[in-house]
């Protein structure tokens, strides 16, 4: 099930929260949904599900969610950290969600065991930790074995073991041919979890592709040589973009092989030649730039 997001838009007063946003959530992979605070990630997810009213449309397997006979079998959602009534037991919460798809009681037991909440199934979740609350939210999302999952910051409050479990679970879920969209601020975790990322800032799309594509676009080649000025000139002539970094050069637009040949032909001795791969965090910072809505001041 591929999710197509087409020209979503939403304003809150004078603030344009989401602006002409289009992207695709492909099946078979985990798609990370990244953006700084206030970028419009949660609003976008709500618009996709029809929870907020705005412009554009989202189609799940060719049609809007509202036109599917059993929406809970189409997409499972976990948008809030504590999406349940504190006085209703975990099992009853899932029983309520199970009604739409007419799921048997055994499925509820299975999902509770899967997320590790079987022992507290009949307890009221008002005393649940944030991590337990996230697990219950995830249990609700996967209850009807939907063809797509949309999770907003599901790793918040989870301990490292739980995050690892979540990562493996979501990758396995996607590998079965389902679409999984996960928003997160944990970039290192997203690098391990997601195959494809959509990055937004101030409600606008700034990047859409695989992590390798995004990172490689922002990677460069570092060259240390005996005559940086001469080599820089040769590289610029060959179409490269060169940044001078003391005795080294940072080069974008040419491969290590091309740089090596140019240096050899120009008689410049190369002392060091290596690809400098950007991290997802560096890529994210470059992409979103000043896109943080409420930016910090200087750290010191």
């Amino acid at each position: 099930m591929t999710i197509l997001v087409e020209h979503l838009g939403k304003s809150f007063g004078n603030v344009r929260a989401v602006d002409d946003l289009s992207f695709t959530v492909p099946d078979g992979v985990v798609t990370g949904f990244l953006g700084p605070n206030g970028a419009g990630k949660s609003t976008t997810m709500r618009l996709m599900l029809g929870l907020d009213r705005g412009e554009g449309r989202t189609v799940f397997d060719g049609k809007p969610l509202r036109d599917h006979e059993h929406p809970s079998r189409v997409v499972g959602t976990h948008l809030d950290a504590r999406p349940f009534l504190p006085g209703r037991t975990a099992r009853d919460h899932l029983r309520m969600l199970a009604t739409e798809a007419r799921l048997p009681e055994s499925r509820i037991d299975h999902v509770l065991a899967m997320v590790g909440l079987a022992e507290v199934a009949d307890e009221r979740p008002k005393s649940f930790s944030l991590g337990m609350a996230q697990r219950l939210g995830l249990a609700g999302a996967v209850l009807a074995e939907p063809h797509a999952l949309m999770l907003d910051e599901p790793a918040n409050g989870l301990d490292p073991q739980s995050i690892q479990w979540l990562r493996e679970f979501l990758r396995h879920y996607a590998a079965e041919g389902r679409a999984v969209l996960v928003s997160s601020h944990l970039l290192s975790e997203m690098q391990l979890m997601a195959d494809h990322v959509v990055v937004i800032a101030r409600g606008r799309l700034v990047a859409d592709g695989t992590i390798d594509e995004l990172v490689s676009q922002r990677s460069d080649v570092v060259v240390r040589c005996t005559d940086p000025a001469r080599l820089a000139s040769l590289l610029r002539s060959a179409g490269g973009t060169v940044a001078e970094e003391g005795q080294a050069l940072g080069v974008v637009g040419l491969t290590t092989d091309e740089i090596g040949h140019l240096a050899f032909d120009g008689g410049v001795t190369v002392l060091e030649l290596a690809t400098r791969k950007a991290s997802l965090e560096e890529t994210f910072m470059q992409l979103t730039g000043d896109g943080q809505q409420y930016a910090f001041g200087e750290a010191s």
Partner: protein
Amino acid sequence: MTGALRYEWVRISTVRSTWALIGLAMLVPAGLALFVAWLVGSLGSEAGGPPDGEAGGLAGFLPLTAAVLCAIGAAAFGQEYRHGLIRITLATFPRRTPIFIAKVLMVAMVIVIAAILAITTIVLAQALGGVIAGTGAVWDETAWGASGVRAVLYIVLFVLIALAITALTRNQPVGIIAPIVLAVLVEPIVSAIAFVQGWTWIDWVLPFSGGAAAVSTDGAEAWGHLAIFGCWFLVIAIPAWVLFVRRDA
């Protein structure tokens, strides 16, 4: 629609407050009815009680019953907005009108049963009060037949108005307090002014006074009052439904 009804049944039946409120709606008015029946029986008809051999005052206990139960109506929307469950509900049921109708129908169904139980306990308490007072068990005949049906519908409409106010305002305390304040404070003051001014038509305009008149009068007049009470529910419920369908969850 059946999925939405099942969802609403599980939602309403799996919170303890529903059952606690039904219990309170049975016990509190019945306790009061027992005390009043005992007091009136002890004092006798000369002291201002109903004639010997007649019970009375069922209509007087119904607003209290309805006030207790209106928290169930307000919770239908109030709990969901308060705890963010509304987003799960509307992601599960993206077509909003069926879920709105399901909430109204399921609350109405539960309140019909709760109202029948509450009225039954009031009647039993009145009879027991008479026995304790030594005047013997007297059964309140206004609890049976058409007047009994109107009593149940009065409670149901009272609670549904609480539901509609909550849906309109997305605020559970307002949904609970507004009908009670209107019924207990505002409308009696307006009625007193109307009495002084000689506005005899006032019970045909005020929702809760009209609703109470539907129980305390008979025949076509009573049904007319009940119909107007029902119209007041629609006056609040229709804009609530329109907003529920259109606005952000």
